[in-house]
């Protein structure tokens, strides 16, 4: 591996990301599985970094999962995007940031489709007006939330209480980055770092003291596959793809995985559990599995947030070995508590994944 070569490629993909004032839209998967990540994103940006990220209750799902699983027509998607942009206009914003990778890919795709086929755009506008009496102007900048954390990575590093360094050995933690396919494979030029050696997560990891691992199946999809997961009978596809990735990264002994896609984070976490059940095999050291974290969770850990405020208890793979490595103090008893330390029981133990 020639690091300089990668750096040269990174310099070719400098994405223009504004510094402030964004209209924020959520991700269906992240709200359900990693709600604290979204909440911490807004908290870090608005309170710790004093930026302006605005959210309205009026926005909805982009319908992307339904679209890619063939459940809604493209026309429906396009009008939904028009409505989201119209909300952005309503509140006086010009920059649009979404928390979901599927959404990000589709918003980019919509802008491209409208550019190439003005008749489609006219149709979208017509239906949006008929149904919602709304009009819209397109965003000046369209970015993903991982672009934002990338943009602020050095400010976050300046606020860091911990580094991505093994506190016992002093060596950088070894990190696998996993990029959601629709972040950079559809429009490489709209990503930080391009499709082959993406820099959006690698840049964060470098800034916070860790070391990125490049393993053979790094670019391979997590296997979500939309309908390949939504339908139970198809999930073997999804599982098998993730398994392929884990087998490929195993020899590198990663300390954790950072992902920028809602689905990937969830699947790479849960499929480790399923593999442990099916194959009695746990990746990672001592049978604990390899934690799969969102970029907000990693940023939060670095900034010294309580891991249970970051929602790490909602993952199936336990994060404690990682916290110990980083030298983070935490209260084990409070892991599965509700608000005000309310006792709400705990998940059953997984037999093969500690």
């Amino acid at each position, binding site marked *: 591996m020639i690091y300089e070569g990668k750096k040269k490629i990174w310099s070719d993909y400098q994405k223009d990301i504004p510094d402030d004032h964004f209209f924020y839209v959520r991700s269906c998967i992240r709200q359900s599985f990693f709600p*604290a990540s979204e909440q911490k994103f807004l908290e870090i940006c608005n309170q710790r970094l004093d930026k302006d990220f605005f959210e309205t209750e009026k926005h909805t799902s982009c319908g992307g999962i339904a679209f890619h699983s063939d459940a809604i027509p493209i026309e429906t998607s396009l009008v939904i995007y028009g409505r989201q942009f119209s909300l952005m206009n309503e509140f006086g914003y010009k920059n649009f940031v979404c928390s979901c990778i599927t959404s990000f890919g589709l918003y980019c795709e919509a802008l491209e489709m409208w550019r190439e086929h003005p008749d489609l755009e006219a149709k979208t506008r017509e239906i949006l007006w008929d149904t919602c009496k709304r009009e819209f102007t397109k965003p000046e900048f369209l970015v993903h939330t991982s672009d934002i954390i990338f943009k602020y990575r050095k400010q976050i590093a300046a606020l860091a209480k911990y580094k991505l360094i093994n506190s016992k050995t002093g060596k950088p933690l070894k990190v696998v980055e996993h990029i959601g396919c629709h972040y950079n494979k559809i429009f490489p030029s709209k990503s930080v770092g391009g499709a082959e050696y993406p820099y959006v997560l690698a840049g964060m990891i470098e800034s916070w003291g860790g070391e990125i691992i490049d393993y053979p199946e790094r670019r391979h999809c997590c296997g979500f596959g939309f309908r390949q997961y939504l339908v139970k009978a198809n999930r073997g596809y999804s599982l098998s793809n993730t398994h392929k990735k884990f087998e490929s990264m195993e020899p590198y002994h990663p300390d954790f995985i950072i992902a920028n896609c809602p689905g990937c984070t969830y699947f790479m976490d849960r499929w480790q559990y399923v593999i442990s059940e099916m194959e009695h095999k746990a990746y990672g050291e001592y049978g604990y599995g390899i934690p799969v974290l969102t970029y907000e969770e990693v940023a939060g850990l670095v900034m010294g947030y309580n891991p249970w405020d970051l929602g790490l208890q909602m993952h199936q793979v336990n994060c404690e070995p990682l916290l110990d490595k980083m030298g983070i103090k935490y209260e084990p008893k409070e892991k599965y508590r509700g608000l005000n330390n309310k006792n709400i029981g705990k998940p059953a133990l997984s037999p093969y994944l500690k």
Partner: protein
Amino acid sequence: MEKLYDKLKSDSRLGDGLKSCINCGICTAICPAAEFYDYDPRVIMDKVQSKDDNVIKELLKGEKIWYCGQCMSCKTRCPRGNAPGVVIQVLRKISIEEGYFVESEKGRQQYAINKMMYHNLTNYGYSIYPRTFKYSMHPECGPVWEWIENNLEDVYARNGANLDGEGPGGLRKIPKESMDEFRKIFDATGATKELNHITKCSMEVAKKMGLNEEEYFNMVFNETEKDHLNH
């Protein structure tokens, strides 16, 4: 009867996703589905560009078009700037429109997908919604999800979400006016019509199979007769 190829062609995505294909196989080389299913996107592109209606009809009635996982890795690679994954979207659309989807196992799953997605989206404004995401249907979610499901309010409150609450925040209740707009979009753009069409086609098949709606849902959701994955 209008030619199937012309129907495909009338969707602008076909022209964008399939200029002339040189059969180089780069899409198949990178395709996750090609590794796990009997699937070869290159061959599908070639069949489409044959413009032969019989060949296309066979595709639309078959299993293969449903194997794609929509990761779009093919789009990054194609030396002709094509996107087999996008062509697949159009093939699936026409397969649904023509009612051919019920002739394959993987196509019949569309009924379950549409039911779930349409329900979640038009009732809550989310494609995934924790109150309908059941551990029983998702055992892979692990014991942690079972615990979350049993303590939904507490867990989401602890994790900074605003489950079914007023105002902004994760999993908030989207205001009625917004939901009304959202549903109108579904009606005006054909999403509702598509659901009804899929339901109608599916119920005809269910009837032939002697299954009621729930049984049919469970069948297409839970099992396939054929083992589609490669070994």
